[in-house]
């Protein structure tokens, strides 16, 4: 009986293709928007995971600003978002204090220098960071391929360790070590060249290819005052980085107001992303739910029309022995098939969207088996919920009246 009903459902849908397609439009839009968003979210998560993996598990950062305002369920905060890029909150005192804490292997300041690295006037994409010697060790994935790292002897000297990509942009295949570049108005000697990790996040990972280092004091001189945008901390092996991060938090609390600084571990970064994604997902899910509701009502409407149009067929089926249950299942299956076709088309549309995002952006969205199950489940659910009333109405028809229906 089930296969008979399934065959009949396809026959009936095939008889009104345009009507069936228009009916499923709401489901198509709802399913495709949710799946596309989830796929993009999954891609973002993978990207961040890859990026986080390029920091060691023992590494975490101290940043200015109140990150908790974004990760604790949107609680109200007076924190100033501009603090995240402030260079005036963290100080060399903080760096020194963190270095003294138990379990801290090393801590160093990072100052982002807003200058372009050029060679003979040609710009590069270098992201210039002023830091202290040893900072390189914090990124296990970024290694020195030529020359040397910054040393304490370079203090205030015009030397630079060039990132992989700017080196390629400015020197092509030549070895840049020993050559010079221009930063602002000053000439710098390239003392080392970095190699970016092979596996990097497409979005955030480009930083690993572009990051280039100059001595901290040189950076301070270039921008005119001492600023610290980040403090990188590496916990000693054998210490739990979470405990060390907590110790750093407690230490910072003795010198800063609550909400002035945050300690960000790789897990915090993932939490932050998940929190942001779930907020966006909630908004899109609400829109998708409305679309599915409209789609469901469309399915219900068209199924009621179909029941009326096929009243005589219902009478014939009852005359030859169909029970109420059999009639109900037949029309319910038809509603489910219509809705599931919408879900399938929505999934197909989402796949096309994913391919476009993949081709046009650095992000690689991913459709997981869970998303496919969700698309099928949601569309079948819509079919059941909105197909039930028409199916019951079909099942309740009186066979004699139904056979007389013109």
């Amino acid at each position, binding site marked *: *009986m089930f296969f*008979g009903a399934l065959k*009949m459902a396809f*026959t*009936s849908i095939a*008889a009104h293709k345009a009507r069936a397609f228009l009916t499923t439009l709401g489901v198509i839009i709802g399913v495709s928007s949710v799946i596309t968003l989830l796929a993009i979210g999954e891609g973002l998560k993978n990207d961040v995971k890859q990026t986080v993996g390029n920091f060691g598990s023992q590494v975490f950062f101290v940043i200015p600003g109140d990150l908790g305002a974004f990760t604790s369920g949107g609680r109200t905060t007076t924190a100033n978002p501009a603090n995240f890029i402030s260079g005036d909150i963290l100080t060399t005192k903080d760096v020194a204090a963190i270095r003294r804490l138990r379990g801290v292997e090393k801590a160093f300041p990072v100052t982002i220098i807003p200058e372009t690295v050029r060679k003979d006037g040609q710009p590069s994409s270098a992201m210039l960071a002023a830091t202290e010697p040893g900072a390189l060790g914090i990124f296990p994935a970024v290694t020195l391929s030529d020359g040397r790292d910054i040393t304490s002897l370079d203090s205030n000297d015009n030397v630079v360790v060039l990132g992989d990509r700017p080196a390629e942009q400015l020197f092509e295949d030549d070895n840049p070590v020993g050559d010079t570049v221009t930063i602002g108005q000053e000439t710098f000697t390239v003392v080392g060249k970095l190699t970016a990790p092979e596996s990097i996040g497409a979005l955030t990972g480009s930083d690993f290819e572009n990051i280039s280092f100059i001595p901290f004091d040189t950076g301070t001189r270039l921008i005119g005052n001492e600023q610290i945008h980040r403090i990188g901390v590496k916990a000693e092996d054998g210490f739990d980085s979470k405990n060390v991060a907590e110790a750093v938090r407690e230490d910072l609390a003795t010198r800063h107001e609550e909400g002035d600084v945050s300690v960000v571990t790789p897990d915090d970064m993932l939490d932050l992303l998940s929190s942001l994604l779930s907020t966006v997902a909630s908004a899109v899910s609400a829109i998708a739910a409305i679309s599915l509701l409209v789609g469901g009502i469309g399915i219900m409407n068209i199924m009621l029309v179909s029941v009326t149009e096929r009243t*005589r*067929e219902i*009478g*014939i*089926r*009852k*005359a*030859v*022995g*169909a*029970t*109420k*249950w*059999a009639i109900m299942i037949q029309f319910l299956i038809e509603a489910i098939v219509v809705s599931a076709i919408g879900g399938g088309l929505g999934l197909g549309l989402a796949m096309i969207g994913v391919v476009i995002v993949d081709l046009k952006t650095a992000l690689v969205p991913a459709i997981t088996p869970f998303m496919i199950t969700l698309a099928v489940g949601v569309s079948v659910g819509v079919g059941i919920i909105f197909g039930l009333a028409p199916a019951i109405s079909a099942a309740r028809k009186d*066979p*004699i009246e139904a*056979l007389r229906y013109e």
Partner: protein
Amino acid sequence: MALIELVTVTKEYRSDHVSFAALHEINLSIEKGEFVTIMGPSGSGKSTLMNIIGLLDRSTSGKYTLDGREVQKLGDRALARERNENIGFVFQTFNLLPRVSVLDNVLLPLIYSRKKIGNRGDRAKEVLGQVGLSHRLHYRPNQLSGGEKQRVAIARALVNKPTLLLADEPTGNLDSKTGQEILKLFQDLHKGGSTVILVTHDSGVAAAAQRIIKIQDGQIEGRTSKESTPPTTTLEPVHPKKVRL
């Protein structure tokens, strides 16, 4: 034992304190293997009687026994099963499903059947062969003539090997020649052992049966046994082979 036994069966329709008796205390007995016509003018109650005999409707009072089973108090599900396994319907307007093939139309009762009748496809083809439509298996109803449509309807009625064949004005939408052919088919089915009840207002059609039951104003007027008299219509053989269920 009679196949059909109706005892003081009454069917009343009630609305807003007004009642109308479509059938009034009908007593009727039809034996297994009989070919009976129920004849009466429009509004006489013949279709109501057919619907009650065919278990599409329930009487208001009285007792109905079908093949020894009292079916009066059966639930909807049990009635559907009785219709599926024991009754085959043939309608004036054919009532075929327009969007499916001849074969699928004939297979329809078997979708709902729990009866063991061997391979369903083979059985459907077999009955389509019996009504002379083996060459039309994959046609749609709209590609068939009126006579062919009624043959498909008869094949559908026969496919689940019912004990009773009920036909409501089966020749009403056909020209006289085709109507004769269809009546001949019913006669052949009767000769093959089927119990056939044919409802008609046409005395010429009614004469094809063994026995005529006349109905007027919801009551049976009298019974005509035709066994001793020749049929008033001349029926030419349609199929060379004997039709059997």
